[in-house]
């Protein structure tokens, strides 16, 4: 069997980088441990270059298990960019937190990233499952990496237990599809399911089990309970990584399985996603209103955001390829914008909490007077998450609305519209604290260049993208299977 190593180049490169960082770190003297950051950063940059090199190509290798098409490449770009941003945020965070070892931290992130790159190309249930595990396992360790902090332990343990349980159920679901069709390759499954009429009950059950696994990954209701505690207990950059990269990976797997493998059964899973999406966003928004801590607020907000990205699947069709293309387009567009605004918000929270050690929303009072640039950037991220022009979030919401209405999901669109208004309450509450309220503390917030750079880049991207959304649109348009 021939292996197309060109198609595998980014993954191979990243494996080398991860192992390299791990090994080199072993031989570094203690005071030079910071070297892991530049190594990892450059390594991911090189991987990104290798990914970009594959843009526009259509390669299939390993018996159709590993595919490099535009869909895969665009997601790999998202993963690499998100990882770079998170690395830049981590650097500042790790320099302050002496308990976290640099080498292990970056190694784990690189391994997790490797799983993400792999899942974007995997077109086989076993490969998808293994890739998901590859993403999760390092993430469990990352969540608990501040091992002397009991909250970090709690974060890791909760995350681990939920993760193991949900992936076990997902594996059971996958095995049922193998039992139904005798195949693990998505295309073969799709062919095996075509025209079958005797499988309703079992398929429904199997889909439910699959949704448990992906629902955990994207933090959909009712599999989201771990999210706030884990985000709060883990180092903030790890929370950013989980809420952006890991969630995106969940959506990648979901798209591949649902559209490529189970497209025939769309009538069966469509209503499930409609319900889950609506409940997830409503739950996330309503609970977020009551939060007093910024990371928990962002956690619930990220749950709500997952809801926005799930509802479009609630209008999918078994026969209408154009509509499905539009669904994938809208969610990919949302994920593109989301990667920047969500990472940006977490980065701003890191910048504020890192020196002051404060994570309560109350503490943000008067930030505009203390550090105007940071306050403006944070406000931009929050407005973008809320979907208010001129920040790119408006466009992300817009394409979702457009998809819902195109798919005759007017009710879904109306509920989502009400949700965006509810969400505005808590985003505005933070903005109000920063700009309207006064604080006694007037010291400016200092931050290192890498962190400021990450925040600045994210802010610029979502502002420019708000005026010229086609920058995202062109990328997202390419990401489809049909």
């Amino acid at each position, binding site marked *: 069997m021939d292996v197309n190593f060109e198609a595998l180049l980014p993954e191979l490169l990243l494996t080398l980088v991860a192992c390299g960082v791990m090994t080199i770190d072993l031989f570094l003297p203690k005071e030079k441990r910071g070297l892991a950051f530049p190594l990892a950063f450059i390594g991911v940059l090189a991987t990104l270059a290798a990914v970009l090199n594959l843009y526009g190509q259509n390669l299939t290798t390993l018996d159709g298990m590993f595919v490099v098409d535009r869909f895969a490449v665009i997601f790999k770009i998202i993963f690499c960019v998100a990882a770079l941003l998170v690395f830049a945020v981590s650097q500042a965070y790790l320099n302050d937190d002496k308990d976290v070892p640099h080498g292990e931290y970056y190694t784990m992130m690189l391994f997790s990233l490797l799983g993400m790159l792999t899942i974007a190309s995997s077109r086989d249930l*076993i490969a998808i499952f293994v890739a998901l595990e590859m993403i999760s396992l390092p993430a469990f360790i990352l969540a608990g990496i501040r091992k002397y902090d009991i909250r970090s332990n709690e974060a890791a343990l909760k995350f681990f237990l939920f993760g193991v349980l949900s992936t076990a159920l997902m594996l059971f679901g996958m095995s049922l599809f193998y039992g139904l069709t005798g195949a693990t390759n998505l295309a073969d499954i799709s062919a095996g399911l075509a025209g079958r009429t005797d499988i309703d009950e079992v398929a429904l059950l199997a889909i439910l089990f699959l949704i448990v696994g992906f629902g955990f990954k994207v933090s959909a209701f009712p599999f989201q309970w771990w999210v706030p505690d884990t985000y709060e207990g883990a180092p903030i950059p790890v929370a950013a990584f989980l809420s952006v990269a890991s969630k995106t990976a969940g959506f990648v797997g979901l798209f591949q399985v649902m559209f490529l493998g189970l497209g025939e059964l769309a009538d069966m899973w469509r209503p499930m996603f409609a319900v889950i999406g609506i409940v997830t966003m409503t739950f996330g928004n309503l609970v977020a209103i009551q939060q007093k801590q910024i990371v928990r607020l962002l956690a619930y907000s990220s749950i709500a955001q997952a809801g926005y990205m799930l509802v479009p699947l609630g209008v999918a069709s078994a026969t209408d390829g154009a509509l499905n293309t539009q669904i994938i387009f809208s969610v990919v567009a949302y994920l593109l914008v989301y990667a920047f605004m969500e990472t940006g918000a977490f980065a701003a929270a890191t910048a504020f909490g890192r020196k002051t050690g404060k994570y309560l929303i109350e503490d943000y009072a008067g930030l505009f007077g203390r550090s105007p640039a940071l306050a403006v950037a944070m406000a931009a991220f929050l407005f973008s998450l809320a979907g208010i022009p001129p920040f790119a979030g408006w466009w992300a919401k817009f394409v979702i609305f457009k998809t819902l209405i195109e798919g005759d999901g007017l009710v879904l669109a109306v509920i989502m519209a009400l949700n965006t208004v509810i969400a505005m309450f808590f985003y505005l509450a933070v903005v109000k604290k920063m700009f309207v309220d006064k604080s006694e503390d007037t010291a400016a917030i200092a931050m290192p260049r890498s962190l400021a750079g990450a925040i600045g880049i994210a802010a610029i991207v979502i502002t420019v993208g708000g005026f010229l959304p086609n920058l995202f649109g062109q990328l997202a348009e390419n990401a489809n299977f049909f």
Partner: protein
Amino acid sequence: MQGLIFLVVAATSGFAAVRLVTNKNLVHAALYLVVTLMGMAIIFLLLTAEFVAWVQVLIYVGAVIVLLLFGLMLTRAQIGKTALDRQQRWVAGPVALVLFGVTAPVLWRFFDGRTISLDRQSGNTEALGTEIFTKFVLPFEVVSVLLLAALVGAVFLAKKD
């Protein structure tokens, strides 16, 4: 005959699995785990997948459980009743029962009477090896990296600075 053996094995490992999670003594729980995993190995054997069966015995029963027991006994982990009980079994129990009650009949109805022929050689070692190193080489390689990551993570979490 096969069906009978299956029933006995399944019932035994099912019972052991229940005891595994309800038992408050960790060592006993580990021993119940041995029973469950052995049951799995026998089921693999019944499906003529000898290689997988022996791997199951060697790795899980032989290595994992032994390591687990060593770990329990050598460290000063509390072996008896623990205080970490969140009293959530009254929620978890019914949920599990409902899940079972829904899943089992559905699977029974669908797969009842469907057979697969066991002479396909799919369980034999040679075929399995070929499959793993050709068709499934990607998951295989990913798993190897995954194990490396797990190893590093485990060492990190376990070591004292």
